[in-house]
């Protein structure tokens, strides 16, 4: 007896099955952060692998385990999947021990990603704190690669100190780019050589003039404190709750809405998120 559900059983397509991918390059970023470039072994699959900015994938270190990592590369650049990872525990430790050319498992992409169709034609304000830059980077490059579809593109990025800045090599260019308003800041600058702003990320709001809350989408990603202060600021600027987008982090085991670890109220972070509007989040208790 099969259920009322119309279920298409396709034994060859087990959604839990990681596909093999190879680490093609490893670029150290900040301390305990590295950028991994991965390519699926199956070239056709690699070309067809299609993501939306803000989606994530489940990365398996063979013999150790699996964990969700945001895809940092934009969908506009096919063939390579980039992931910026912080070393925090079992799986990420093992990943950091792997040399280039090692085989890993990858499945995805999962999650809703940013509602880019809605965002097009609007101003885009991205606010990142620390590792929050990882998912936002895919949105950033999506916007820059499709520059004509957006009006203003603004990026505010803050880290604890200069050495924690991720994608450093890109920022030197980004900051000078004419089609992007890019501001970076550090909480503290022990080196004294930091050429840019010092202060928390909200202090960068002063550098952005004439934000129009009615035509701007704000995408925030960072640790809980960032959400708290940035959202306060945006609300003061009269942003509607539906135009504030946040990316939530949860424990995840399956990534596809089964294991229930990422559920918040009636939402699954993996299926319905990780991108939620602030309005969603208010209605999801425990969300931040």
């Amino acid at each position, binding site marked *: 007896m*099969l259920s009322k559900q119309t279920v298409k059983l396709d034994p060859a397509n087990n959604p839990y099955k990681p596909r093999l991918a190879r680490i093609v390059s490893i670029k150290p970023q900040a301390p305990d952060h590295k950028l991994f470039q991965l390519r699926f072994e199956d070239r056709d699959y690699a070309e067809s692998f299609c993501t939306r900015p803000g989606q994530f994938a489940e990365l398996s270190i063979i*013999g150790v385990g699996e964990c969700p990592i945001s895809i940092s590369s934009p969908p506009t650049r096919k063939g390579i999947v980039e992931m910026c990872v912080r070393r925090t525990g079992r799986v990420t430790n093992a990943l950091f021990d792997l040399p280039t050319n090692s085989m890993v498992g990858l499945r995805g992409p999962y999650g809703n990603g940013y509602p880019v169709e809605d965002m097009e034609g609007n101003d885009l304000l991205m606010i990142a704190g620390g590792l929050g830059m990882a998912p936002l980077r895919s949105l950033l490059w999506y916007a820059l690669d499709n520059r004509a579809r957006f009006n203003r593109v603004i990026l505010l990025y803050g880290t604890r100190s200069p050495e924690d800045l991720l994608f450093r090599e890109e920022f030197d260019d980004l900051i000078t780019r004419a089609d992007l308003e890019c501001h970076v800041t550090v909480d503290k600058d022990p080196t004294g050589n930091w050429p840019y702003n010092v202060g928390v990320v909200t202090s960068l709001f002063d550098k952005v003039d004439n934000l129009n809350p009615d035509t701007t989408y704000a995408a925030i990603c960072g640790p809980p404190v960032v959400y708290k202060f940035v959202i306060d600021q945006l609300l003061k600027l009269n942003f509607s709750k539906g135009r504030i987008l946040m990316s939530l982090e*949860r424990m995840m085991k399956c990534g596809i809405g089964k294991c229930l670890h990422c559920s918040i109220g009636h939402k699954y972070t993996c299926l319905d998120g990780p991108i939620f509007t602030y309005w969603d989040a208010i209605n999801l208790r425990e969300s931040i």
Partner: protein
Amino acid sequence: MKSLRMAKRHLPKFLESLGKWGKVYVPVKLGKNSYRWEEFDGEVDNIALDALRTVIPAKKFFYKPREVMFEYDKTNGYTQACAECEEDVILFGIHSCGIHSLETLDNIFAGKYVDNYYFTRRKNITIVGTSCMPDKHCFCKSMGADTVDEGYDIFLTDLGDDFLIGVGSSKGDDIVNDNPDIYEEVDESTTKRYLEFRNKRDESFELVLDTSDLPTILDFQYDNPLWDELGERCLACGSCSMVCPTCYCYNVDDTINLDSETGERWREWDCCLFRDHALVAGGHNFRENQGGRLKHRYLHKQQAYLGDFGRTACVGCGRCIVACPANIDYVECLKAMRGEMTSA
């Protein structure tokens, strides 16, 4: 739907013929007051026909407490492992609430990403339901799970000397046709006896939970201190979730062999009352205290799942009430949230 009658003395023959469709599992008694499904040993007397709730519900047939998802090796990656998924099984003695619970699990394991393990078994397992008489912990009626019209291959209703045989699928029909001698047509008295049975059963429910507006009420009661009081008592032992026919969350881990090359990826039933259920790297716990975890379980069943699939993720089997060492009572708690006086 096709209905037939079978005299009870034919039960051995009936079970014997079921054997042709796969391994037959029947409820048997263990200990003083507990039951579990075990492979039929050929002795009809060993079947506990009166078993209301087995310790572990039918979900174990479709979704194992611990199962290997993949075997892997470091060169070739992951290979799906689930040979026994393909085994043909006849599940005899599941009740109406159990059949409903399978539907709640179907909803989760289907969808955009189909869980192969679950549905391969689902396809290969034949459901032979039996009727039951509720006890003081059953509240399936309140959860709308006290009767079934579909979801089974065959359903046996106890009418005294006879079983009413409901044939619910083409496979069920094959089973019946295989052994025509033991069945008779329904007759005059069947309707009467059936209604008598139904009425008696309806009247036996002692436990009733009013579910009207419950999701909304639970919203209002979000900060009720009772959650934390219950949290203080909860041992996080996991019993309630393990025995719940609709609890489905799981954990995944990888084990490696001594050769450092090969190993297995497992999944294992998990429970949202465990401390590490919402714990993320760096030690942040999204549900820091036990009261919050308990609330999450209840809200998930009565609010979240309901919102997604239009029915609650509880079928009223009463297992969690029976299995809680701390006497935390699901129904009492929800009644208290409604403001009905109880001793929860």
